[in-house]
């Protein structure tokens, strides 16, 4: 059975989507989505433990040996991301029903769950595959379903945000397609391992150089790396809360993983970081991202928008880590991928509860939240501390690892930027806390405030709690991140 797990964890959510549509019932669709995500999470955990003890798993779909067919390859790096994505999907499943009931037309709810299944399928497919073109196919599944998930936001701005995301996302996807095509033109193959084997002989080939460029730019759009981030803030801020939780925690992370796989698993670190000046470029872009994202977040007057802009900044940390292309830098990147997914997922879950209770996420409306909803406030505070990187939070663990990696690489300017952007995070988190704690609520309010539904609170505390546990007891996560980095660098035992 374990031999078929690589395909099952993608195929089960895939099978779930048409079932949701056939049954046409919101309740049944929710159960299907829940079961599919739990199955995917379970498989991912089993895969991760199997990979940790027995090494990488290979699966030939259709029993066609690579490079003739499509192969799935699971190693420590993608097992890490698979566990993360499917785990967030489970949290979203717990969170979703009450949030969706409040935000989405009841007749469309079953379709909405089908879209969530599809988005999960797409993201898991991108991560699990060992075939370059297969990445594109699953990238499009996840993208199309994300556009739809975002477009159903309550306000009309969601439609515009989804459209802008669709145009940018399609350009990004097509850039990736061009890049894959150029690499195919000079090698004749699409299998990642086969490409990796044939490409070193071609270093310096202009077609190959351009392929690296197109894939990088395309995935940078999908990952919302500054300055290609323009689609992200309104897309995530306008999305229905449940979609916001899922996408903010997984979408950009998977695109970054895909870049890592292309850079280290296909083109090779020797080409991307040795032959081409990508390292310097990535460090500049990442530094700009963490400063610009955090700075703009300070000027927003809506909780979800602050969180979305903060994501633009936090992606910068991940990008800087991978730009170092060292064991330490990559493990820091993996740590921050998971830390940020948990923290930002938890914070978007909190913001969704705020939206449900107050009917808005405008910052002035938060006044008095500390008294009217202490639990929500505490979650907001703990998540915010994680974004700043205060000790005992997961955000600290990953930032510490990043700073250590930067010190080792003598990147003092970048370290200064990390500190500066942490100060900026203190400003935007501080604004939220200041309003929620100190400011008096308007007199008429909080009589009719609905209480937090238990499942939503459970999901919120689940995400925030895991991020805190990971902050206090960091060893297992660090070990997994180190193994993931080693797998990418090819130094795994």
């Amino acid at each position, binding site marked *: 059975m374990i031999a078929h797990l690589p395909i099952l964890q993608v195929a089960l959510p895939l099978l779930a989507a048409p079932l949701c549509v056939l049954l046409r019932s919101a309740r049944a669709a929710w159960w299907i989505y829940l079961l599919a995500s739990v199955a995917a999470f379970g498989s991912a955990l089993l895969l991760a433990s199997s990979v940790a003890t027995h090494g990488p798993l290979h699966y030939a779909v259709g029993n066609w040996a690579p490079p003739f067919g499509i192969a799935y390859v699971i190693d420590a790096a993608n097992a890490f991301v698979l566990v993360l994505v499917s785990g967030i999907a489970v949290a979203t499943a717990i969170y979703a029903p009450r949030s969706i009931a409040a935000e989405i037309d009841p007749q469309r709810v079953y379709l909405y769950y089908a879209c969530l299944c599809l988005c999960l399928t797409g993201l898991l497919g991108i991560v699990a595959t060992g075939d370059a*073109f297969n990445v594109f*196919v699953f990238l499009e599944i996840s993208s199309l379903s994300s556009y739809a998930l975002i477009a159903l936001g309550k306000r009309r701005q969601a*439609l*515009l945000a989804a459209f802008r995301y*669709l145009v940018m996302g399609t350009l990004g996807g*097509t850039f990736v*397609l061009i890049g894959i095509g150029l690499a195919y033109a000079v090698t004749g193959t*699409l299998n990642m391992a086969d490409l990796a084997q044939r490409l070193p002989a071609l270093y310096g080939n202009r077609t190959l150089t351009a392929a690296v460029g197109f894939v990088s730019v395309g995935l940078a759009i999908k990952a919302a790396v500054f300055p290609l981030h323009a689609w992200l803030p309104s897309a995530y801020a306008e999305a229905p809360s449940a979609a916001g939780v899922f996408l903010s925690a997984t979408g950009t992370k998977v695109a970054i993983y895909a870049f890592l796989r292309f850079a280290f698993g296909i083109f090779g670190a020797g080409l991307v970081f040795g032959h081409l000046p990508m390292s310097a470029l990535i460090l500049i872009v990442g530094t700009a991202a963490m400063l610009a994202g955090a700075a703009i977040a300070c000027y927003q007057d809506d909780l979800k928008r602050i969180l979305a802009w903060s994501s633009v900044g936090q992606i910068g940390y991940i990008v800087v880590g991978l730009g170092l292309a060292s064991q330490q830098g990559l493990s820091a990147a993996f740590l921050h991928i998971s830390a940020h997914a948990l923290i930002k997922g938890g914070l978007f879950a909190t913001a969704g509860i705020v939206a449900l209770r107050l009917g808005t996420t405008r910052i002035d409306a938060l006044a008095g939240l500390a008294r009217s909803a202490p639990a929500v406030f505490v979650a907001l505070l703990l998540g915010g501390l994680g974004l700043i990187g205060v000790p005992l939070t997961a955000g600290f663990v990953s930032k510490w690892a990043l700073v250590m990696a930067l010190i080792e690489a003598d990147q003092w300017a970048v370290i200064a930027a990390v500190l500066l952007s942490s100060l900026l995070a203190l400003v935007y988190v501080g604004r939220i806390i200041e309003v929620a704690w100190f400011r008096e609520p308007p007199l008429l309010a909080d009589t009719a405030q609905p209480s937090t539904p238990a499942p939503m609170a459970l999901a919120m505390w689940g995400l925030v709690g895991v991020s805190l546990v990971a902050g206090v007891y960091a060893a297992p996560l660090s070990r997994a991140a180190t193994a993931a980095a080693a797998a990418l660098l090819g130094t795994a035992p």
Partner: protein
Amino acid sequence: MIASHYNYWIAVVLLMIGLYVVMSHSNTIKKLIGLNVFQVAVFMLYISLGKIEGGTAPIVDAAFTVYSHPLPHVLILTAIVVGVATTALGLALVVRIHEAYGTTDEDEALIADRREAERT
């Protein structure tokens, strides 16, 4: 160089026109039309990789021995379908944007949103 590469270059020129239309126009329908041109240009780039001199379509028959490579064809079949799926979703969004804003122009809709935000 010219005789052996002009196929690629024509596709590149078409790709540039498509990309220009997507980036420059603020009308949402026109953007999607541009996106189509852009994608078709990429398809041409791919298909030209499979062609072989004197070859025929990859349908095995005793009368032929040289066939063009089928793999780019398969990939582009997939990409065409992805393209129409994206266009359909984009157009559905355009219809809804028009209903919500009374315009299909991205800039006009953004201005309307900004005015609304200033009023509240």
